[in-house]
């Protein structure tokens, strides 16, 4: 499946709304095992994404991804800003250098998170949604129920990266906030693809 500029624009428009709606939930998840600001951080970012989307009507896919990446990088701060930003920046580069196959794109995004965060699958981070989604896409198993399962699976993990890792075992039993905001992202993608 190919990602087009049009699809991507709709995808990010939906995501802006979704973060606005879920800001408090993300803050709450982050209060339990972090510092309580993940929703606030992401909201600062998507507000800037909205501005970019309004100005970027004619951009090609690689440029669009880059602009969204820059918006997130320059407004989110904290840990999630550079992670989402790197993921989208790497996707933008991938489009420019290779193709716009969705499964390849998300895989390159996941690789970006891994590289930037020095993290691995199982560390209880957003990567624990990105990587399985990339795999699902490659195997034609990208659907709502699988997506939800990936998110829920983060509850059982002990955090090895990010602020939650200071809690050690006490991080078990909670969803990872970055995994939740990633689940929201891919839920928006599903909605766009299914239209």
């Amino acid at each position, binding site marked *: 499946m190919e990602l087009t500029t049009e699809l991507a624009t709709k995808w990010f428009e939906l995501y802006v709304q979704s973060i606005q709606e879920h800001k408090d939930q993300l803050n709450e998840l982050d209060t339990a095992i972090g510092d309580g600001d993940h929703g606030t951080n992401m909201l600062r970012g998507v507000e800037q994404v909205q501005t970019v989307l309004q100005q970027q009507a004619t951009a090609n896919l690689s440029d669009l991804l880059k602009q969204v990446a820059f918006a997130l*990088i320059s407004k989110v*701060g904290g840990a999630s800003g550079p992670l989402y930003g790197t993921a989208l920046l790497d996707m933008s580069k991938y489009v420019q250098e290779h193709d716009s196959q969705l499964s390849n794109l998300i895989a390159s995004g996941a690789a970006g998170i891994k590289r930037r965060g020095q993290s691995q699958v199982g*560390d209880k981070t957003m990567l624990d949604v990105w990587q399985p989604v990339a795999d699902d896409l490659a195997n034609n198993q990208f659907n709502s129920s699988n997506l939800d399962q990936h998110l829920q699976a983060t509850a059982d993990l002990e955090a090895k990266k990010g602020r939650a890792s200071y809690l050690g075992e006490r991080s078990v039993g909670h969803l990872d906030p970055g995994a939740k905001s990633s689940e929201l992202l891919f839920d928006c993608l599903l909605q766009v693809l299914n239209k």
Partner: protein
Amino acid sequence: MKKIINQVSEIVPEMVQGIVQASNGLLRQLPDTQVVIRNDEQFQTKIQVGLVSGGGSGHEPLHAGFVGEGMLTAAVCGEIFTSPTPDQILAAIKEADQGQGVLLIVKNYSGDVMNFDMAKEMAQADNIKVESIIVDDDISIPDSQQGRRGVAGTVLVEKILGAAARQGCTLEQLQQLGQQVIDNTKTLGIALQAATVPAVGHPGFELANDEIEYGVGIHNERGYSTEKLQSAQKLAQELLTKILAEFDANKNDEFAVLVNGMGATPLMEQYIFLNNVLEELQKQGIKVTFTKVGNLVTSIDMSGLSLTLVKLDNGWQDYLTQNVTTLGW
């Protein structure tokens, strides 16, 4: 929450304006950023490697208060307890670079590390020579994948590197020196009362009237144990034992000692604590050749303090002693 502020969302920009204005012209703010940079005459005339630090706000005077002749070139002020973004860090790097390259001094938190890393990559793409060092002096958590946190020792790293940069060291020399200092810097902190993050409105955790928390971070992270408050002397012994265990020191080693207030603990208590620390070190025959006391790396209005020891190498004591022109040292 009882604070002398206006809107919570305006705390950082208003504070940064205050800092710049308090400097009597020695600092300026880069337009459209929360970057504070040297504005003194020497900065225009004397070329050296740039030193840029930064991180979440709430640790004042760190880092903006250590910008000035002989210390940092620029500081990037993030939201309270939130890493600044790479574009702001990049702006600081560009202005700090005098053609000799820039060293980034980063406290070890994933947000800070990643944002500074991205800025470094962006600057390198612009053909600016940039390197970075990661300060991880807090010994309160066991060394994990995530690594230890960067806390009060950061200011001593900034002081030593500032003096070395002024003296003309190259980027590579500074990076190496910085890493050596970090490897020999160990800190442990205690809290009598947690800080109140303005956006939260109440203390981050509760302690009873006779309790202290051992091993706190500088972002209201709880420590490794909650104990009854003890005398300054007992506290000094307790912290020293844990810190000294991190060094394999021998009799000829010389140390620097930093007693750092967390924000709401008066100097009176910090000096008494220093007195006990030095007494104990003397008893153990450990030589101290530099001491520093004060609220340097704070955690908003936390009550408490931290103790830092640096095992000194050649010339470091001199770097620590040299005069600088900053708001906070």
